[in-house]
């Protein structure tokens, strides 16, 4: 090994003992130029992608929300509500009004009375029906659905 007394004695070569492969510096400018071109192309593509995405993103979100909502409504309607409780639009009669029998058949007595409290029910009965008719119904233990059947 060379004798060392002072750092200034060492050969001051900018390469400091390192070397490069043959032809490295001849080819480097071309490789760097190609890399710059590739980088420019990929950054342009990125800008276009980001631009398009930022425009369509809100519409995509809105669309997916609507689809989810519709699927949810359909699922609830189809699977969660029993068929006998599903609201079915009554058929129209010839003169355009709904057939009363069709309408009434969808409801039972408890459905009707649920919307009316006891006081209102008593008042309605008192106003619209004679006491005889009510007493008759009670005495004969006739329920509402039976009455409808007999009217048909």
């Amino acid at each position, binding site marked *: 090994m060379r004798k060392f007394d002072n750092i200034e004695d060492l050969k*001051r070569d900018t390469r*400091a003992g390192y070397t490069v492969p043959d032809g490295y510096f001849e080819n480097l400018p071309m490789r*760097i130029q190609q890399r710059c071109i590739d980088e420019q192309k990929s950054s342009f593509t990125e800008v276009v992608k980001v631009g398009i995405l930022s425009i369509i993103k809100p519409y995509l979100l809105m669309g997916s929300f609507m689809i989810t909502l519709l699927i949810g409504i359909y699922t609830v309607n189809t699977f969660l509500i029993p068929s006998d409780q599903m609201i079915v639009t009554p058929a129209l009669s010839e003169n355009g009004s709904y057939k009363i029998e069709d309408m009434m058949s969808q409801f039972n007595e408890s459905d009707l009375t649920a919307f009316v409290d006891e006081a209102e029910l008593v008042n309605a009965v008192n106003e619209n029906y004679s006491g005889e008719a009510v007493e008759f119904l009670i005495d004969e233990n006739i329920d509402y659905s039976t009455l409808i059947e007999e009217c048909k």
Partner: protein
Amino acid sequence: MADYSDKELLALFRDDESKNYSFNLIVRKYQERLYWHIRKMVGSHEDADDVMQNTFLKVWKGLESFREDSQLYTWLYRVATNEALTFLKKKKTRYFISTDDDESHVQNKLESDVYFEGDELEKKLHKALAKLPDKQKLVFNMKYFDNIKYEDMSEILDTSVGALKASYHHAVKKLEKYLLED
């Protein structure tokens, strides 16, 4: 190939028609200086090549807005230096290399590096340099190997001339002590 000044090269670069030609000339003019500067920092040829490409990519993107308040070569050196330091920082974080490992790491690398032809004393110098903090090593390399003036170094590293002189002085003392130990 015509020999253009830095001002002329910058003017050519700002013209769209001659931009690529001008950039090619800039690369050819400064590639060796920047390469050896980077190589002495990072050690291996493969790493130096990566850092070189990243450096010139930054130059390509940033040259348009270069304000010419400094010389072109000091600006190029600054970009190369920052890229080399960033590379070293990432490498140390990624591979958990501590400063204590640097010496044996450098020794092993030099022994196996086909692109190192230095003698035993140069190997020992590199081992000693590996013990220095990165910035102090940088100052030493730029002064000792590249003979860059302190004023230019101050622009490149954004450090005062006094601090650079002190850093170099301490670096020399540490290296001499290590090299004389055997």
